């Protein structure tokens, strides 16, 4: 609503007073203010415990945040079209259970595919309701979230599925010269997700639909297909994330991590992507992920007392965004 995305390089040649540098500098500050907040946070935590920037810790963080980060990639797409996917916590548990179930009953090799197929179906269900029946995505996905959660209970009869074959854990916990496979997948999703968004026709359509649905429709963009596809993508991300977690734990159960939805939403939104749709980008999700992961990791590394963790977390989230907003304001004033 109050978001006014700055056009990098939109400056007119007619302006004489300001130097190019000053102008673009200000624009950069305005655009990338959230990065400043992130850098400050990193500096503070690594002064507190230099191990923060150690290779081992970074690898750990990559593998720990792979499930949430991968789902944040899907959520970025959904939110950019102006949608919402609140079914991811249940969908993720369901996919993890499918992965573990197939890992037990059939073979770990098929677990990944089965979970992705399950995620695909979940996403399709959301897509059909949101663009087919045309129900508000917020409430639709709250509803499907309940349904999927319920299905998972019924399927598991409320017991954990423990996979006896330890090879099942290789995907989630395996490493290559110390670099976790799950971290590679996270980086892959962020990169490919970002490139598709920034460079392809599909990505442009996402922004267009989120920015003005009616104008996009009249321009011949298949609005429903575009919107629906983001839910399917989000579902596939649940499948991947669920498999990684099931593999990391060598087991899965219903209600795996019900609050992961907050993590994922916060990751996307804290970077500055607008919930109104049409504005945001994958690098913002990367920064958001960085901020949230650093906070969570920092609590342990700096051994912050439990009682103060929530206060600190909330203050950092609000503070980072306030800095971002103020940066825009200051830069707009001085740069223009």
């Amino acid at each position, binding site marked *: 609503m109050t978001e006014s995305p700055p056009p990098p390089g939109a400056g007119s040649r007619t*302006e004489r007073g300001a130097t190019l540098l000053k102008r673009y500098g200000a624009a950069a500050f305005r655009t990338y203010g959230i990065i400043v907040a992130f850098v400050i946070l990193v500096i503070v935590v690594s002064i507190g415990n230099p191990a923060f920037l150690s290779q081992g810790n970074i690898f750990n963080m990559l593998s720990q945040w792979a499930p949430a980060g991968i789902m944040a990639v899907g959520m970025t797409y959904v939110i950019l079209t102006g949608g919402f996917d609140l079914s991811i916590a249940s969908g993720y548990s369901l996919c993890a259970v499918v992965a573990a179930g197939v890992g037990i009953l059939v073979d770990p090799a098929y677990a990944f595919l089965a979970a992705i197929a399950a995620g695909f179906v979940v996403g399709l269900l959301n897509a059909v309701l949101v663009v087919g029946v045309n129900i508000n995505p917020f409430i639709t996905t709250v509803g499907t979230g309940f349904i999927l959660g319920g299905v998972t209970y019924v399927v598991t009869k409320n017991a954990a599925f423990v996979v006896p074959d330890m090879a099942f854990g290789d995907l989630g916990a395996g490493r290559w010269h110390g670099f976790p496979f799950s971290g590679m997948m996270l980086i892959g999703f962020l990169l490919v997700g970002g490139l598709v968004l920034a460079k392809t026709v599909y990505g442009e359509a996402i922004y267009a639909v989120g920015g003005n649905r009616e104008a996009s429709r009249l321009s011949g963009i298949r609005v429903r297909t575009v919107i629906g596809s983001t839910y399917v993508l989000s579902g596939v991300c649940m499948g991947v994330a669920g498999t990684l977690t099931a593999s990391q734990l060598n087991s899965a159960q219903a209600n795996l991590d019900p609050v992961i939805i907050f993590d994922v939403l916060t990751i996307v939104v804290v970077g500055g992507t607008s919930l109104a749709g049409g504005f945001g980008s994958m690098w913002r999700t990367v920064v958001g992920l960085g901020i949230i992961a650093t906070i969570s990791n920092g609590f342990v590394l700096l051994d912050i007392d439990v009682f103060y963790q929530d206060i600190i977390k909330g203050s950092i989230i609000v503070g980072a965004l306030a800095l971002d907003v103020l940066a825009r304001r200051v830069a707009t004033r001085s740069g223009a």
Partner: protein
Amino acid sequence: MEARIDPPAPSSAGPDAVRVERVSKSFPGVQALKQVDFTLREGEVHGLVGENGAGKSTLIKVLTGAYSADKGNVEIFGHAVDQHGPRAQQRAGVAAIYQELTVVADLSAASNVFLGRPMRRGPMVNRRAMEQRFRELGARLGVDIQPRARAGDLSVANQQMLEIMRALQADHRILIMDEPTASLGPNERERLYETVGRLRDERTSVIYISHDLDEVLRLCDRISVLRDGEMVATAAVGAWDKEKLVNTMLGTELRAPPARHRASEGDELLRVEGVTVPGKLQDISFVLRAGEIFGIAGLVGAGRTELLRALAGTEPGASGTLTIDGRTQPLPRTVGRALALGIALAPEDRKGQGLVLSQSGFVNVTMTDMRGLAPGAIVRSGRRKSAAEVIATSLAFDPRRLGAPTGTLSGGNQQKLVVGKWLHRRPRVLLMDEPTRGIDVGAKGEMFAVMRRLADEGMAIIMVSSELEEVVELADRVLVLAKGRQAAILEYGELSLERVLAMTFGVEGEAAA
């Protein structure tokens, strides 16, 4: 028409209602106003003209407090206004009709007119009084809008009337109108002119912005010209004529408009039969030939927009058939289907339906044909850039502004892009709803030239415009709609302003009789 309005009596100079001194305003990358001086005398109607993007809207937004100026002073009735948003200015007696519609779609028509100043009984809203007053205002302006209608369901013209009613609803001493007639038909325009005349008699001071220079010359006491953010001239109306205004606005001579010529009689491209939209349109049939510009004339609410929407696959209730390439089929049910047939719509509501305001001109102009610019699904920015620049240049849109989010462009420049969107994809039939709304005289010439050229290249264009002169000047044939029915199709030889007017009103007269 001209003869029907009395020339304005020069008003006696009173104390200044508004005084603007050395006001500058810039946006990132654009200096919209440069040291502008401007004076509005009490009781005068002051015309403000200039090219698209000259800074007119910006100036009045500074006046109303919607924007705060970077430098300079604004005084209202001798009091400096500190820049604290629109409230302070409203208190000081300023009302404005903004160029971009500011209706709240989900509120009723009456609530929109009284937005921010509802009639009240204590803390309660007095809806009955509001609806009563709404009807009075409507009667005065000759519009028939239900006070409880949802504003978003009204046509653009009626939404524009709501804006006008909003400005007139309280008795303000200063009234600012930014292109109030852009989407109005002849009837409504006349009523508005009368209203402005009456306001002047009541010593209300008016700033009047329009691209219709005849209108400005008829209505205003003094006229100021803005060019590139600078105030280049202010003079009494007697000192101006149309040519002088144009030359001052553009800084150069206007190129002669393209000579009117008839399209070579092309082959039948599209046959439309029996288009009906329940409650809006009845049984419209016509034939469209390749290479022609087919005008649709009619009064506001006659159903012109509906007809275009029906052909473009976006009017759910529509029925009827199309014959194209020898195949007869029902009207397209989706936009995609219409596009597959080669039919595209440039809608009249540029903000709501035309542009993705958060995206750049590059994106907007090419989004109709992204596949064409992106073999292998990857967008080639180089190709896109050159394609967009060609389009921009042909529409007198400064190609250097293509990178800016379209939401930051002036109204007229946005309109150019709405039309420009289809110049890349090149449909076989282009439906243009009010394509010149808000476009300056210079750019209008360019737009006409483009339309003519497209037609000459074999495209068929259907054009709806509330400016009948425009329709008559440009169209090869004209379909006249009256109250949703087809009054006549005037062929090339039969076309004249008088006939079209007679048809539109004549049928109305019949119906009333």
